[in-house]
């Protein structure tokens, strides 16, 4: 019998058309798959999707909410992408965000009367250091003994979230907060100014500036180049005399610091206090955003807005009785299709008979 099978043939150069088309098709296919699930569970996918679209992008309020969600996504995605460049799988952005938020909160709680020019920079520095140190905890055993950083960064997410819970349910709880797990509200000097009268805050500029800086560093600096080399071949990097251990520590610290900044921006720019559950999983979504953006800092800015919209859309459908988890499901499905599609940028899919004869392209 002449059985047909698929065969992958490596392309000499990645297809430039595919690089752009595949993320697009992936999103569409994920929506299609999600639509099938919605139909199977008795929902109308068109209603659900149009609701998600209208609520996230169809009004001024929706758009600003989308941007509000996009800011922490931009920062955490930039953070993890820096580590991913070096093939350091920092899955701990969520915990680093919480630790950054926690450390930034400490300043206005302890010194509420600081002037704004000390308060905000102080919160930024504390938030970044805390996020960075939290990541460094996993980078040290990774650098010395090659302890799997995926597991350690992930485990520390749970620890960080529980630590913040401990604080807001315990020693940091606002005595006047009628028993809610929240700290006292920050003084005005500890609040990042908003843009106009919207909830979008100046943390957006942190993300924009960092994206530009990272893009320049990756493209033009020697250090950026060496991170790339270490990421693609540790052996080659060692022969070239690059200090791998030092770069593991440095990159993980910076990666965590950027996510720590995201935490600072959340408590200072949006909430104005520390509370239970400050992030709906930005640190995990960041992994998808970073991968979908091919670790390109400028692409991350755009993709973050799309995923911010998805987040807002998820909340929107909840009102209609559709679980918000549908947004998480779509995120996972998008990543599946992107991964599968990536093959097509590097390989040609061919249909061959079992004897190995080529039938079609």
């Amino acid at each position: 019998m002449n059985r047909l099978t698929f065969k992958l043939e490596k392309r000499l150069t990645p297809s430039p058309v595919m690089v752009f088309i595949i993320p697009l098709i992936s999103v569409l296919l994920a929506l299609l798959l999600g639509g099938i699930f919605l139909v199977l569970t008795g929902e109308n996918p068109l209603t659900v999707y149009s609701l998600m679209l209208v609520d996230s992008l169809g009004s001024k309020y929706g758009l600003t909410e989308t941007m509000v969600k996009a800011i922490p996504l931009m920062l955490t995605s930039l953070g993890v992408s820096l580590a991913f460049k070096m093939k350091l799988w920092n899955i701990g952005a969520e915990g680093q965000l919480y630790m950054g938020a926690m450390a930034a909160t400490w300043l206005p709680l302890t010194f509420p009367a600081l002037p704004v020019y000390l308060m905000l920079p102080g919160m930024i520095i504390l938030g970044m250091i805390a996020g960075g140190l939290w990541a460094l905890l996993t980078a040290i055993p990774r650098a010395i003994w090659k302890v799997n950083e995926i597991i350690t960064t992930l485990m520390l997410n749970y620890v960080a979230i529980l630590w913040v819970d401990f604080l807001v349910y315990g020693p940091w709880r606002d005595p006047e907060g009628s028993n809610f797990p929240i700290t006292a509200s920050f003084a005005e000097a500890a609040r990042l100014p908003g843009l106009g009268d919207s909830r979008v805050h100046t943390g957006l500029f942190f993300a924009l500036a960092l994206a530009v800086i990272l893009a320049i560093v990756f493209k033009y600096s020697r250090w950026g180049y060496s991170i790339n080399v270490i990421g693609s071949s540790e052996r080659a990097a060692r022969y070239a005399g690059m200090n791998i251990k030092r770069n593991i520590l440095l990159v993980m610290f910076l990666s965590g610091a950027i996510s720590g900044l995201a935490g600072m921006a959340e408590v200072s720019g949006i909430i104005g206090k520390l509370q239970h559950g400050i992030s709906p999983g930005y640190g995990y979504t960041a992994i998808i955003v970073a991968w979908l953006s091919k670790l390109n800092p400028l692409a991350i800015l755009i993709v973050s807005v799309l995923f911010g919209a998805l987040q807002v859309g998820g909340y929107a459908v909840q009102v209609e009785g559709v679980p918000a988890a549908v947004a998480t499901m779509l995120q996972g499905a998008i990543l599946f299709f992107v991964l599968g599609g990536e093959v097509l940028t590097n390989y040609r899919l061919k249909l061959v008979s079992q004897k190995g004869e080529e039938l079609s392209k």
Partner: protein
Amino acid sequence: MSIQEFLIPLLAASVIAGTPILYAALGELITERAGIINLGVEGIMLIGAVSGFMMAVTTGSPWLGLLASMLAGGAVALIHAFLTITLRANQVVSGLALTIFGTGLSGYLGKAYIGIPVEKPFGVIPLGPLADIPYIGPIFFQHDALVYISYVLVVIIWYFMFRTRPGLNLRALGENPAAMDALGLNVFYLRYIYVMAGGALGGIGGAYLSLAYAPSWLENMTAGRGWIAVALVIFALWNPWRALMGAYLFGGIDALGFRLQVLGYQISPFFLQMLPYLFTVIILVFVVARQKGRLTAPGALGLSYDREER
């Protein structure tokens, strides 16, 4: 308080709390022995938990629930297998995608089942005369059927891996797939089988939570146990017996926190909840450091197999 009153119940609770991790770890163990890392265990467990629960609630049979969780776990593992084996996608990212997808899908499907009781969860069946052995009986033989099955499973997997021909092939599959290919074994087909079998076991791990341990459905009820299972495989040095010991150790930490609270120790529950995660990190660092970076991981673990690049 005497030893009988504290230690025996603690050890018995360790076995119960360790069982879901054990199932998931055994699944990941055979997956990794075949050369594929699956970081989607957390998502697989969640899907196993919710599908098992839905089936058990609908049909009234925990065993049908168990079957559903195995099928669902195997089915989502198939996605990982297709992406990583056939399409040679990055195994780390594919696993993460699976975890995110599983979290979302289980949350979506399970929404209507939150707070619903399951009519017949897996109940305690004292195992005949074994249950009456002093100390040993209460610790190991006064549990539900899934605990007993896990004992047998450890023996079977160990025997299969180290005493049979296909088991030898499984180990070689993760060490040197090219050699297996040269011997005429279908590397791709075998890897698919083991990844899906691993997924089915992960599904059971989830179903244990929703049908025996809790028994109920809660969003994200695995709470990182899938990741602990992945860590456990490293701790176990890819050996099922060590996986068993490790699972009960982690189960013990889990159970200890709860018991200290009951005894009235003034420790914040948040710190007690942190224990399993901190313990995982510390143990992992300790085990890997002791091996001085020369872990006995399967040689081809995490690498896609491409016939043309042999």
